[in-house]
């Protein structure tokens, strides 16, 4: 017994330490993951081409490759590399070299990655999934003058109140893809009252308030708002609270929350039709949701089922190469390469950070999603699709049922007035 003299004290200490550690790790897994970064996997996609007459271009891909958003970052990177590979590593006559860094979904790691890449002299940065991480590095990137193409992070203000000349985004702002469905749900679907159910953080709030703004301006009424924490294990208590006054339910729950929300929604037989933000039935999770997503109507700037030659070529190439279904994220990577190619084509003379920033601002491309260009704030203008989940030949897909071409981040509103108003994130909870 002499061997263990202070057991209760030490055990208590151990308990406190372990709880603290786990709490930190858990909080991290939701917002800022604490996982140490994997050693960066530097990949030179292009072989040396002695005949290249133009200067080589270096692209830094900065995405989470570990942590909860690893699947998103991987799709973006693979989409970009695939486009490059199909052009033998050459875009507009320039050899393109890729450097890859892992943000590990963590601000400090992302800052190191950005510093390393800018010191290496990259001509273009592309990536970022987590808006918090993006805000953490935005100032450094603005100072460096290196053009950044954001490929996933949605926080509205990155291309609104905090817009910068060298920051572009070809993925959505949180509210951009939600607003068209606000009008569609009221005028086309005829749902006059709506309950909102979504995730309780900036993306969920901005998307929900974007939807609610357009929906109420079209003359319909939001009667209930329910927000649940990111990573909610059991959605049953939330779906059971849905108000009978609501004619339909609009949901925003990307990732594994989307799977659990739909499972609970069907398990408890909620009677109202379900609609939502497109990320709720994203192709990354649709193969898991399957029949629970049947008939759900959502809006997004992409669907794997878009019926065009550009999209079919992309889908076939990606699925053959990776063995995974395409997703909006893979399309973002592919479209980033297209944007770079178009920008390089338009530059007459030396490619510098300044000329590249200016050239990107002026590009117009035909991406798999359709036509894409940037507004004066650096945010992409594109078609937003209304999709309905259906089973086609044994596979669950987001069938396109309608579209809103040339949708801007301000929808039909005046940009100045839109940004002068209360930020959408702060309006959550005020609609019911």
């Amino acid at each position, binding site marked *: 017994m002499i061997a263990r003299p202070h*057991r209760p004290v030490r055990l208590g*200490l151990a308990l406190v330490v372990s709880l603290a550690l786990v709490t930190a790790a858990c909080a991290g897994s939701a917002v800022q993951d604490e996982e140490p970064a994997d050693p960066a996997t530097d990949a030179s996609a292009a072989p040396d081409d002695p005949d290249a007459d133009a200067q080589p271009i270096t692209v830094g891909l900065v995405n989470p490759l570990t942590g*909860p958003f690893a699947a998103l970052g991987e799709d973006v990177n693979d989409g970009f590399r695939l486009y490059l590979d199909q052009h033998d590593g050459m875009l507009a006559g320039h050899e393109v070299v890729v450097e890859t860094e892992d943000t590990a979904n963590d601000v400090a790691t992302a800052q190191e990655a950005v510093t390393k890449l800018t010191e290496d002299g990259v001509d273009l940065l592309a990536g970022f999934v987590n808006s918090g991480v993006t805000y953490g590095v935005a100032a450094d990137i603005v100072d460096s003058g290196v053009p950044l193409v954001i490929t996933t992070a949605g926080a509205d203000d990155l291309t609104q109140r905090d817009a910068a000349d060298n920051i572009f985004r070809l993925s959505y702002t949180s509210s951009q893809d939600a607003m068209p469905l606000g009008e569609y749900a009221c005028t086309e679907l005829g749902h006059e009252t709506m309950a909102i159910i979504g995730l309780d953080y900036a993306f969920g709030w901005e998307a929900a308030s974007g939807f609610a703004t357009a929906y109420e301006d079209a003359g319909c009424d939001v009667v209930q708002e329910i927000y*649940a924490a990111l990573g909610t294990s059991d959605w049953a*208590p939330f779906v059971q609270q849905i108000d009978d006054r609501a004619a339909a339910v609009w949901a925003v729950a990307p990732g*594994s929350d989307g799977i659990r929300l739909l499972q609970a929604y069907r*398990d408890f037989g909620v009677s109202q039709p379900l609609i939502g933000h497109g990320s709720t039935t994203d192709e990354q999770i649709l193969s898991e949701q399957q029949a629970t997503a049947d008939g759900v109507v959502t809006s997004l700037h992409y669907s794997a089922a878009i019926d065009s030659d550009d999209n079919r070529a992309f889908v076939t190439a990606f699925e053959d190469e990776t063995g995974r279904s395409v997703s909006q994220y893979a399309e973002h990577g592919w479209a980033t390469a297209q944007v770079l190619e178009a920008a390089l084509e338009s530059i007459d003379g030396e490619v510098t950070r300044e000329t590249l920033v200016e050239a990107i601002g002026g590009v117009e491309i035909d991406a798999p999603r359709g036509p894409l260009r940037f507004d004066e704030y650096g945010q992409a203008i594109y078609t937003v699709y209304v999709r309905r989940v259906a089973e086609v030949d044994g596979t669950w897909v987001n069938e396109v049922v309608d579209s809103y071409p040339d949708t801007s981040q301000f929808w039909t509103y005046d940009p100045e007035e839109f940004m002068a108003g209360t930020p959408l994130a702060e309006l959550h909870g005020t609609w019911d």
Partner: protein
Amino acid sequence: MLNGLSFGGLLFLLASGLTLTFGMMRTVNLAHGAFYALGGYLALAVIRASGSYLLGLVVAVAVVAVVGVVLERVVLQRVAGRELPQIMITVGIAYVIGDVVLAVWGGRPQTLPRPPGLDGVLNLGSLTFPWFRLGLLVLAVVVYLVLQRSLADTLVGARIRAAVDDDETARAVGIDVGMLFAVTFAAGSGLAAFAGVWGGAFTGLRPGTEWDILLLALIVVVVGGLGSIRGAFVAALLVGLLDEFGKWLFPSFALFTLYAPVAVLLALRPRGLFGREERVA
């Protein structure tokens, strides 16, 4: 109400393995959540390859139990009784398992199928309740009774209790303490994998699952009181109900209503609901 109880049933399953390794053996195993995730993913792979749910379940439990024993024999027994090294080592192992899982199965969220026969919904007039959730609750009760009985009424159980209480005397009367601890650790790890197969059909699997699950399991074990199976069972149902009512009453503060009462309880009663008074040697 039933929801809260069924979620509590899941919580008990998550925590049952940890009550053995941490509660009984006093080995701080923060890789518990990683064992859960590993079990879930292994089962998923086997079920997809073979189409057999039962085979997936058995393989997952067996493989993870072996992993657990190897961990205990090779690493943890060297730091027996020293909690801080145990914490650092098992956290490290959890990260390794987490990254291996990410490398093998990718980062997209995945869901295990529900067990055959539990897919439908029970309809009783106005009450609809999924069979799967009812099954979880029943399963939790069964696991509880088996654990409780085997610790209280069997010779192995008596030996484990003896070894935990006073391993020197236990060794002196001829009990192979090392062997017993290996068996207990195998059972604890296997239970983590078992919970992973069931929980994977409830909450899904994704990168980070290992930490979410570990936090819930630690709460249940600590609230219930170290070393008490009964405590863990009561605590799991209590936490499940708390979570349910919290989500009804204050939906935007669901995490607060879950953790705040736990913090208060531990402040007032640090050894948990059914924890034994620690003897000072």
